[in-house]
């Protein structure tokens, strides 16, 4: 049997796209992007983080177009991002400058600045709130007015306009339980400009982890803790807040005071403590701590913690565990790459499949012929 090249399906594809639009519109409801942006904070943050593009209105539009499917929304945003010029690279962002909205430590009870719970679902009952089905704009306004009145500044003195807090782990550094490090200002590599090659460096690993698919990053980190890895982490510090972004003048060399402030980005940072036995002089061993680092766009706490766990895994390559193998982790956590590859299996594979089918037929035919020959001999 010969193979033939075929074409066609243009009309069917056109009608399929129409059908897709019909599925989105058939209930005759216009889903305004402003409403998605206002009410789907978690999904917006996840989509911005995985697409590696920070802009809430665009994330809302992508979610609307994708009918709430994150993998499609991320694909749309990554594609859009590739059409835009990169104007600048920011000045170095230090997370000590984060305007904190939430900060906790699972390792220390008393931390400077205190444990600030901020907005979290951690202490909520996971019971469906059927009242939300009857929520009205009037009820929302009433609640907001009351909340704002509760928090209006009266006579109390708040010293600083922003909540800037010292790092919890600086205390362990002062005690010598975490090695002190000097700033390393080596320019990072950019995986969006140059393809990843192994062995990877730290900047590449962290960039891939931070834009990784939340579910994939979380699942691999969970596997590490369950035993498919060699780590026992504790949350040293988890903070959520706004990071101010500055860019320098493109042509002038000026001081920090001459930078342009462009706005804040919300991010989640996790510093995970990993105990390990450090080799000292004369073969002596001492228990010390290392930090696994996670930072991602938006309030994505599970992802930031999982990223920190995988960061530390990849700092200690160990082929006994897939989670410590950089190729295994870094090549499989990207949303567009993994969902793209899996979903491409739906695309026509007529030629490759026919070739497989031919081989099966030939094998079967030759088996039948052999059997017939043996029958004749008897």
């Amino acid at each position, binding site marked *: 049997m010969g193979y033939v090249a075929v074409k066609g399906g243009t009309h069917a594809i056109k009608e399929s796209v129409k059908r897709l639009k019909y599925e989105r519109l058939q209930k005759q409801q216009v889903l305004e992007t402003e409403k998605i942006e206002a009410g789907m904070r978690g999904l917006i943050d996840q989509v911005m983080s995985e697409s590696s593009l920070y802009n809430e209105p665009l994330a809302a539009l992508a979610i609307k177009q994708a009918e709430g499917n994150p993998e499609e929304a991320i694909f749309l945003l990554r594609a859009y991002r590739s059409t835009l010029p990169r104007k600048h690279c920011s000045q170095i962002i230090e997370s000590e400058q984060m305007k904190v909205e939430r900060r906790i430590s699972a390792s220390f009870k008393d931390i400077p600045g205190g444990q600030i719970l901020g907005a979290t679902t951690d202490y909520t009952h996971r019971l469906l709130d059927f009242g939300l089905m009857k929520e009205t704009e009037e009820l929302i306004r009433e609640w907001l007015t009351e909340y704002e009145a509760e928090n209006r500044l009266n006579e109390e003195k708040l010293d600083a306009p922003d909540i800037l807090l010292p790092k919890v782990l600086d205390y362990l550094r002062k005690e010598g339980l975490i090695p002190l490090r000097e700033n390393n200002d080596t320019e990072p590599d950019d995986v969006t400009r140059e393809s990843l090659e192994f062995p990877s460096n730290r900047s590449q690993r962290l960039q891939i982890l931070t834009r990784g698919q939340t579910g994939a990053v979380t699942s691999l980190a969970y596997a590490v803790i369950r035993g498919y890895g060699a780590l026992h982490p504790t949350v040293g510090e988890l903070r959520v807040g706004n990071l101010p972004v500055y*860019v320098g003048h493109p042509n002038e060399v000026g001081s920090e005071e*001459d930078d342009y402030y462009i706005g804040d980005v919300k991010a989640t940072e996790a*510093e995970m403590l990993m105990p390990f036995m450090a080799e000292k002089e004369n073969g002596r061993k001492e228990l010390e701590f290392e930090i696994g680092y996670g930072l991602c766009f938006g309030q994505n706490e599970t992802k930031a913690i999982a990223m920190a766990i995988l960061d530390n895994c990849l700092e200690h390559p160990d082929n006994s565990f897939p989670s410590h193998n950089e190729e295994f982790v870094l090549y499989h956590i990207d949303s567009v790459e993994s969902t793209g590859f899996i979903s491409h299996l739906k695309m026509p594979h007529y030629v490759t499949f026919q070739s497989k089918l031919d081989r099966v037929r030939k094998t079967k035919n030759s088996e039948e012929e052999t059997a017939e020959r043996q029958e004749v001999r008897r």
Partner: protein
Amino acid sequence: MKRKQRTEILISGSQDLAKSLANEIEQNYPVTAIQKPENGLVMLKVRETSKKSLFYLGEVLVTECKAKVEGKIGIGIVKGHQPELAYHLAIIDAAFLGNLPETTKWSSILESEKQHIEENSKAKNKAILKTKVSFETMDV
């Protein structure tokens, strides 16, 4: 007032302020848009706190504009799609670069806006700090 503080106030404060300052310049001098407001990206370079090295967190959508006033080219750059604000910021930047006389009296206006921003920020922080845990030791 240096650019860092100035842009912090103009971006965090009311957009009407940037508009009114830019309008003042437009009324007194010819303004040329060298680059109309256009969208682009800024890649964020961050320091991780484990090894203190640098990596790229991702990109943020920005609007950038360049305007020329009295021979000086100012840049307006702001997060998100904000063409009008970017244009006003570019004019104000050019005005400060050219030390135009209007800018001298802007300091007090900017300082007053800064106070307003700080008050709003403190009110927001009051609500956040209400979520600070107050531990009590239990008798066991």
